[in-house]
């Protein structure tokens, strides 16, 4: 009884804090609109520019793709924390293939293939050999973290590859790209459009197709799915491979839009796979929600760069750089309401054998 009271009290404090934060943001925006020359006004002015939106979209691509991949895997009951590794491997292989094959699109394709292969290995280890999913996921990350710079060292003589000549270029929709702010949506890299398409398709696949229902059932109640005559193992394999395909797009897009793979330290992926996990958890396994939470992080990152350059807030620049991370933690703590699939992380063995 007292427990229930305490938890209810806890919930309402959380809600209060959430409301307070919301009110603070609203006040900030209001102040900014009312007084364009005040600090909030200046912040809003750099935030709502076409260039900030364009940067947000570019920064979102790898995170959003990896998050989509994570949704499929985890919805089916396999927690894939190896997304970071899948991004790394596809980022390197894509640059290598584009360098050898001379086409960024070929690079993208081969990068996706490499990531799918690694995801396949992960699937075999987790599903066939019933390894602990968390440990196997960490192994995927560590393998990629060692393998990609090592291969780069062997091929290019250093952890960083050479710069490619070509890149994706941009697709510009006439007229629409002239719109202030939102014009950035119509003047972007092809991979940005791919990202939107992938989010739409993923949402459709999960919510409107029988494959989507199988994936959900496999994560919530695999026994029921099995009873209905659907092979749970096969569904889980498909979902994990799909997570490899999606993360592969993200990693390849990341390195190819720069034209170089950076393999020092945490590599150029540098935690984007883990941020993707946060994004889909915050988005409660909804592709659209995951995209929106990716936008929140990427948008704050884009804003952070602009706040530094414009020197609006008088704090050290290293503090300004932490804004996106701090904001995501705060938002996650106050508004996050995630329900993990019932059978996520559990192995399922069909009763037949």
């Amino acid at each position, binding site marked *: 009884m007292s427990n229930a009271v305490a938890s209810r009290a806890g919930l309402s404090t959380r809600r209060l804090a959430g409301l307070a934060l919301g009110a603070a943001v609203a006040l900030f925006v209001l102040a900014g609109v009312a007084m364009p020359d005040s600090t909030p006004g200046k912040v809003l002015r750099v935030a709502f520019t076409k260039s900030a939106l364009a940067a947000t979209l570019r920064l979102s691509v790898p995170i959003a793709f990896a998050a989509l991949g994570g949704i499929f895997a985890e919805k089916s009951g396999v927690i894939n924390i190896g997304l970071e590794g899948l991004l790394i491997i596809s980022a390197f292989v894509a640059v290598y293939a584009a360098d050898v094959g001379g086409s960024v699109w070929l690079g993208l394709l081969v990068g996706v293939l490499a990531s799918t292969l690694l995801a396949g290995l992960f699937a075999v280890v987790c599903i066939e050999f019933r390894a602990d999913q968390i440990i196997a996921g960490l192994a995927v990350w560590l393998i990629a973290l060692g393998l990609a710079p090592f291969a780069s060292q062997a091929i290019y003589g250093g952890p960083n590859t050479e710069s490619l000549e070509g890149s994706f270029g941009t697709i510009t929709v006439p007229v629409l790209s002239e719109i202030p702010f939102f014009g950035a949506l119509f003047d972007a890299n092809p991979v940005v459009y791919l990202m939107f398409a992938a989010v739409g398709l993923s949402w459709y696949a999960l919510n409107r197709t029988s494959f989507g229902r199988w994936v959900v059932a496999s994560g919530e109640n695999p026994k029921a799915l099995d009873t209905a005559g659907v092979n749970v193992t096969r569904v889980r394999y498909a979902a994990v491979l799909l997570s490899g395909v999606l993360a592969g797009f993200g990693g390849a897009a990341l390195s190819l839009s720069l034209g170089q793979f*950076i393999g020092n330290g945490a590599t150029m992926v540098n935690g984007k796979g883990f941020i993707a996990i946060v994004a889909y958890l915050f988005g409660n396994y909804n592709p659209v929600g995951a995209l929106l939470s990716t936008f929140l992080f990427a948008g704050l990152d884009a804003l952070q760069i602009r706040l*530094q350059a414009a020197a609006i807030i008088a704090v050290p620049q290293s503090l300004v750089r932490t804004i996106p991370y701090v904001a995501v933690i705060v938002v996650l703590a106050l508004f996050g309401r995630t329900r993990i699939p019932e059978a996520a992380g559990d192995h399922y063995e069909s009763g037949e054998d």
Partner: protein
Amino acid sequence: MDRRTFIRGSGIAGIAALAGCTGGPTEGSGSNDSENGNGTGDGDGDGSSGSAEVSANVGVVYATGGLGDGSFNDQAQQGIQQAESELNISYNDAQPDEVSQFKSFQQQFAQSTNPDYDLVCCIGFLQKSALAENAPDYPDQNFMIVDEVVEEPNVASYVFGEEEGSFLVGQLAGLLTTREFSAGSGSTNPDRASVGFVGGVEGSLIGKFEAGFIAGVARANADAEVQSTYVGDFNDPAGGKEAALAMYNSGADIVYHAAGNTGTGVFEAAQEAGRFAIGVDQDQSKTKSNYADVILASMVKRVDTAVYTSVENVVNGEFDGGNVTTLGLEQDGVEVVYGQQLGGQISGDVKSEIKASQQAIIDGEISVPADPANV
């Protein structure tokens, strides 16, 4: 269950093996030296016979950006390669990934007896604290450090007058930003007097670049705005690209970077935006020739001179441990080198103004601040 244990065990073993692959000093220079594969790797292989023939063995610990940055580390490598061909030395190098690895790489070179290193070159200011701990532990080992001062009798320190060179490129940027100038793939935006600076990691070293640059811009045009961003990493070209694009999109037309490999992203952004960039450490219109069409000039820092000089001193038995050598404009330690492709199109009056400032700095008529807080 056995199968699971086996898989887990072999997985962990595999990871450990892979991790082993990525660390450790790399053998020889020949393997990762694509320009002149002079095969010194063979000589290094059998260290005992090698050390008998060469005049000195040198270990080099590079900064975290790694080789191939077309900037700081490559410039250091050029110095050691010059020493190799002219002074008949042999060298091994290490490319740490993380600041935390500096200490162990320095120790590996200092402890090694086969070959016994006559000098360990520590490239980059981030190695200071590691070296300050190691130097007293290995009193018989000679060290040299670039960009920092370590006050130990067995450490020769080399620092540069980066603010002086940065002042000159700042003046160049300040003069050009309000002019109608287009060359290569870039053009200025004469309506706005705005330029940018992208730094790697905050600290007194990169602060010298920033301070000099801002002072130089102000000398050329007191009303010009300098947008300044630190990416927080010397090896994050994607971050550098975003930082520079943000500047170009808000009206800047020339961006100077002091960010190692992060600067590659600045050049990429310049090409995308059709604006200009200024390189650092090496003549980047040569080392990053893909971007020669947007690189106006580079603030060259002769890290190679520092490395070469220190090796030469060791070979001649004149190791200057405990000394601090400052290489400024006067000592040719820093200089402005105009871009290979664009330099010829910068007008003569701009160049002569910069030349005049250079002389004024050498003569002490202009004093350049070394801390952005004092600009």
